[in-house]
């Protein structure tokens, strides 16, 4: 398009330098582009647009793609998590993956909260995808406030088992990604009870489906929660546990353990360590939200260069809509916001990786500050992205409302971040707790 070309020809800086800064250096840019190109040009990943699919077709395509990606990543020997992220995001752009919770929540939780014996027991099967897991915390009637969860895990010293139970309808696990149809295991968060005493929230590895025929295990009821605002490809699920027995060894025991006789042993005084996965995910969401807004800005600004409309002076040709000050006022602050949020997202991610090493060594001094900032920034960035994406959509006139614009797909992928992994207002109040202390 000549208008777009003219814009590129008259820029005052080299965009590659900025791309390198975002990626973290020229070599990383080249590597990212190489990996993303492998997915972008792969005919096995081509399918009709998801907006022309029905729900079942969309889920089927997602499972097919997820399995293909697992095999392809192995063939390509791509094992670095960042490189996997690059590949997946272009292979199935803004389409929820059937393996997302397995790789993004289940495995990190099991890795971080297992004893060495538990690690050896589960992780090899997780890595070979014999076990495909999810993370079941949220319940139909309970979300961010963990102590309000109703699911119980009662220890029986007689049989050396935990009995997991959903006592009410509102206690049904609700929303976990890939729980409905795809996964065969879950980390279930439940209140540990021993001899009538409540020891608070703990994670339990529960087998949800048979390893041979994938049927639901006895005592467990599983299903898909139905269509949502977006995420049609994700079988967000519900689960009812009817006195399901799991062995004593299935409680994740890195930070606390139950002995055969029912003696509870806390291995750390800092109970917040069990929420480490959440802190990690929130730090990542801050960057994801920034990228979502940046993508919507990309669409709206390119289109504003291509689209010509109306006239500024009577009789003149129709100008590019980007020449209207009102259009600039809508979009350029959001462009600036995208960069601001991207840099902040990178900063909190780097801080997490720095502090995480200390936490694993038992040094939790900086954990409250990280918890404050990751909670606050997750909320700040996802709110800003949510409202900004809508402005981008509306700056593209009627075409912004079409699925062809790309906005609905990005919007419905990014905007749930305002409510998942901690509702934003609640997270801001968690941040405020630390601010008041300081």
């Amino acid at each position, binding site marked *: 398009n000549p208008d777009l070309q003219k814009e590129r020809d008259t820029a005052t800086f080299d965009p590659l330098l900025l791309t390198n800064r975002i990626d973290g250096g020229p070599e990383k840019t080249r590597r990212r582009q190489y990996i993303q190109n492998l997915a972008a040009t792969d005919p096995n990943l081509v399918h009709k647009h998801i907006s022309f699919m029905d729900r079942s077709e969309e889920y089927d395509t997602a499972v097919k793609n997820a399995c293909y990606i697992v095999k392809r990543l192995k063939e390509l020997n791509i094992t670095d998590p960042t490189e996997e992220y690059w590949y997946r995001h272009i292979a199935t752009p803004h389409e929820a993956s059937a393996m997302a919770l397995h790789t993004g929540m289940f495995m990190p939780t099991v890795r971080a909260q297992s004893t060495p014996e538990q690690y050896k027991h589960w992780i090899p099967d997780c890595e070979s995808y014999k076990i495909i897991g999810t993370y079941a915390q949220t319940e139909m009637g309970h979300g961010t406030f963990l102590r309000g969860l109703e699911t119980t895990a009662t220890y029986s010293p007689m049989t050396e088992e935990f009995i997991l139970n959903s006592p009410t309808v509102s206690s049904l696990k609700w929303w976990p990604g890939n729980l409905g149809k795809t996964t065969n295991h879950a980390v279930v968060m439940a209140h540990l009870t021993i001899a009538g005493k409540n020891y608070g929230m703990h994670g339990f590895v529960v087998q949800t489906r048979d390893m041979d025929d994938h049927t639901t295990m006895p005592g467990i009821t599983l299903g898909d929660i139905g269509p949502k605002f977006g995420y049609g490809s994700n079988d967000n699920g519900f689960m009812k546990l009817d006195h399901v027995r799991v062995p004593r060894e299935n409680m994740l025991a890195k930070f606390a353990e139950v002995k055969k006789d029912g003696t509870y042993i806390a291995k750390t005084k800092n109970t917040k360590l069990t929420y480490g996965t959440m802190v990690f995910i929130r730090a990542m969401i801050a960057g994801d939200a920034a990228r979502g807004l940046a993508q919507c800005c990309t669409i709206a*600004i390119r289109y504003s260069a291509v689209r010509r409309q109306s006239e500024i002076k009577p009789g003149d040709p129709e100008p590019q809509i980007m020449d209207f000050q009102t259009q600039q006022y809508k979009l*350029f602050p959001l462009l600036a916001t995208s960069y601001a949020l991207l840099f902040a997202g990178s900063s909190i991610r780097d801080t997490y990786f720095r502090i995480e090493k200390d936490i694993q060594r038992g040094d939790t001094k900086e954990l409250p500050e990280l918890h404050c900032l990751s909670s606050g920034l997750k909320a700040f960035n996802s709110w800003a992205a949510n409202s900004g994406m809508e402005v981008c959509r509306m700056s593209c006139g009627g075409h912004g409302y079409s699925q062809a614009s*790309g906005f609905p797909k990005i919007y419905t992928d990014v905007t749930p971040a305002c409510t998942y992994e901690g509702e934003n207002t609640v997270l801001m109040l968690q941040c405020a707790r630390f601010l*008041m202390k300081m």
Partner: protein
Amino acid sequence: AEAAVKGQPLAPTLSYLANTSSRTSLTPQFNLDSLVAAYQHRAARLIKAAASRFQGLMAKGMAREDAWNASSVDLVRASDAHCHQFVISTFVSVVNEKQNKDLQKVLKDLCQLYALYGISKNSGDFLEDGYMTGEQIRMVEDGVLVLLAVIRPNAVTLVDAFDFNDRILDSVLGRYDGQVYDNLLKFAQESPLNDTDVHPSYYKYLKPLAMSSKL
């Protein structure tokens, strides 16, 4: 807030609580340090205001938990302002990195726009305690409009620099090659409603309706 009042050591990301001035030094050049200072002042003030309300309610005999709930609107505002100053501070540190001069200039323009736009949208927060004057807010709003024109020639290149592959955007409007209109038509032709010229619903509903209305 409690630690700051007692003069105790503060977490690194909150060290600003101990040193904010009462008046802005903002000039029409919109120096980045003075923009950071403005946001830190706003955050510190809102954090202290939230703390003051919270502690004041407790001093009146309200239970801690009830006082927290009754202060929660202020508390969220305080957290939001804290995060905002963190985002600005981080952006400024990126602009100040050693780098290509042309790139640094563009990043500075964007950083200023982000900061000034935020002040104009939250002007009450900066005016309330006299940190800024109405005249300075007007200067900030003028600055936003000037920066829109400054950024205009680089806008497309700035989004190109994100380097999002067309497959990620999955957007006809945002295609890198700008071939919007031909591809809007191609997209429409994929619609299942276009599989046949006459849709079956015509025979099921529309035709019988037309027939019955003739009777």
